[in-house]
């Protein structure tokens, strides 16, 4: 499966945009080596500006989180857990119960391109659109920087770019390299990934591949391997889904993300009730006390 060379969907040219095929990213931390080639490729291809550098002290992660100028982010998790059939500690060979288990997990985070996208629904200018391949795209020349998408994303992906960076004031996030896809090229991050931890391809193929990979890993002792693809919530699945080891919380992923439009009905109900109550109260006040 891994390392199909030039036969891999990461390297082949394609016509997904022309054929209107739903595409996706499958990101697999079990083969990620934390090289950050995806971060660099994304910044270089998309001309994403340098947004400063600070030592975080958080393992090898000085990127921090996704944002207006960070569209791929390699996470470095340090956990006191066993990784697969990893042998830990000096006693574990003898009696089998490992002491001081430790694992280092790398996962390249990215915009999830939700089936029901909070940012897209919230955008009041129509700057955010759904493309032919199912991805969610911000049109920079239309966005007026109202900031409503920022609080509407259940994954905290999209953000408004601050001054003095180029194109400041607008909202930015991963474009799924829509420009490259239109020309039959693979997104920059997937193209450069040396271990195919990021796989680009048809969404249905990737989902099958992800399920297969989870089984494979569980058989090799990775008992906590699972897919992160919230199809059961109002988000109704994501185009960029992940294999994760352990709980989603450790990756900063919400276990049950919801698209905020589900809250509209009750909130508008309260608004209309208040509107009517205010009118009636005012009219009664003037009718009986003037």
């Amino acid at each position, binding site marked *: 499966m891994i390392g199909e060379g030039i036969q891999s969907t990461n390297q082949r040219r394609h016509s997904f945009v022309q054929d209107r095929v739903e595409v996706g990213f499958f990101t697999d931390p079990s083969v990620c080596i934390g090289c950050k080639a995806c971060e660099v490729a994304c910044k270089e291809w998309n001309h994403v500006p340098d947004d400063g550098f600070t030592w*975080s*002290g*958080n393992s090898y992660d000085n990127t*921090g*989180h996704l944002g207006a100028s960070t569209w791929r982010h390699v996470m470095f998790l*340090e*956990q*006191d857990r066993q990784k697969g059939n990893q042998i830990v500690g000096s006693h574990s060979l003898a009696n089998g119960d490992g002491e001081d288990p430790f694992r280092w997990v790398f996962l390249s985070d990215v915009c999830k391109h939700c089936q029901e996208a*909070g940012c897209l*629904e*919230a955008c*009041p*200018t*129509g*700057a955010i659109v759904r493309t032919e391949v199912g991805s969610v795209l911000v049109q920079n020349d239309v966005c*007026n*920087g*109202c*900031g*409503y998408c*920022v*609080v*509407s*994303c259940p*994954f*905290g*992906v*999209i*953000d*408004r770019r601050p001054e003095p960076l180029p194109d400041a*004031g607008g*909202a930015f996030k991963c474009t799924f390299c829509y420009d490259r896809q239109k020309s039959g090229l693979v997104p920059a991050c997937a193209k450069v990934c040396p271990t195919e931890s990021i796989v680009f391809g048809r969404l249905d193929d990737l989902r099958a591949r992800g399920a297969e990979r989870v089984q494979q890993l569980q058989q090799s002792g990775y008992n906590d391997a699972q897919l992160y693809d919230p199809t059961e919530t109002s988000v109704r699945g994501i185009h960029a889904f992940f294999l994760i080891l352990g709980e989603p*919380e*450790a990756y*900063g992923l*919400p*276990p*049950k993300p*919801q698209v*905020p*439009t589900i*809250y509209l009905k*009750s*909130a*508008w109900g*309260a*608004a*209309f009730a*208040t*509107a*009517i109550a*205010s*009118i009636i*109260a*005012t*009219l009664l*006040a*003037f009718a009986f*006390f*003037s």
Partner: protein
Amino acid sequence: MTSDSPAEKRLEELREQAWKDGVVPGRGVDVVGGPIPRKPGYYGQPVVKPPVWTWEIPIYFFVGGLSGMSAVIGSAAFLFHHVDLARAAMWLAAIGVVLSSILLIMDLGRPLLFINMLRVFKHQSAMSMGVWILSTFGACVVPGLIALELHAHHVFGGTIDQLLRIAAAILIFGSAFFGTLLATYTGVLIGATAIPAWFLHRLLLPIHFGTAGLGSAAGLLELLGHRLAALNVVGYYAAVVESVLLIWLSIDKHGMADRAIHEHGSGWLIRIGEILTGPLALVLRLLGLVPFAAMSFLVGALVSRFGWIAVGKVSGSDPESVFAAERY
């Protein structure tokens, strides 16, 4: 060696703690990484993004609420022939709608592209609906005020004056309708987001914002010298509703998920705002200190708008509140 001196004992303690726990926390020493990170989520990073909105938005909430509900008072005053009050209320509404538009545009990352808001109508976006409500409200209030003033000063005579009166009536009632929506939609705007402390209170927010708008409008008109019994009653109504909301907010707690409302500086802003608009305004009215009640309500309504934006920033930056909110 003075190994029994308190300073040496302290060092021994630290060594023991380091041996036992593997980590020694201390003031100014922030253990972020090793040996195993102990912050919630991924190194304590926010799971959702806190709002990027600055001071313009809470002031917009305040001014928009006051402006919208002024039109409601204006239409009631017009209906019951309090022409002076109707004129004052419509002036407040008109000034408010201009200020609101300026504040809303100022807050944009790219103010010159404001007009792009008017190229789509999206019922599923509270922001889009709000822009259309504000625009329609402005389109009712400003000509409504002009018609009212022309009619009040009898600039034209005969049929034209009669037509102006009818036009003023239609436009004033129209602005009352869209005014109530302008005052309440802001609650929907922040209630329908991914910020836990906001969406958990999506029922309370429109009620609070709308009622705070109504009380502010009545209060400001009273401070401008319109001391009608009817305005006092509206003031009572708003203060009573706000007092009930204060009780609701202190009962309807969601633990970690909405702790931004009960802890931190943001929690204090909410509490101070609610006390000023609720119990304090109510007591001052009962004591007959109407101007003080009006001022208390106005300050409280402004403070609580800042409070709710602050709550959004605290809650959105808190990964534990997002994880906890998934249970509700």
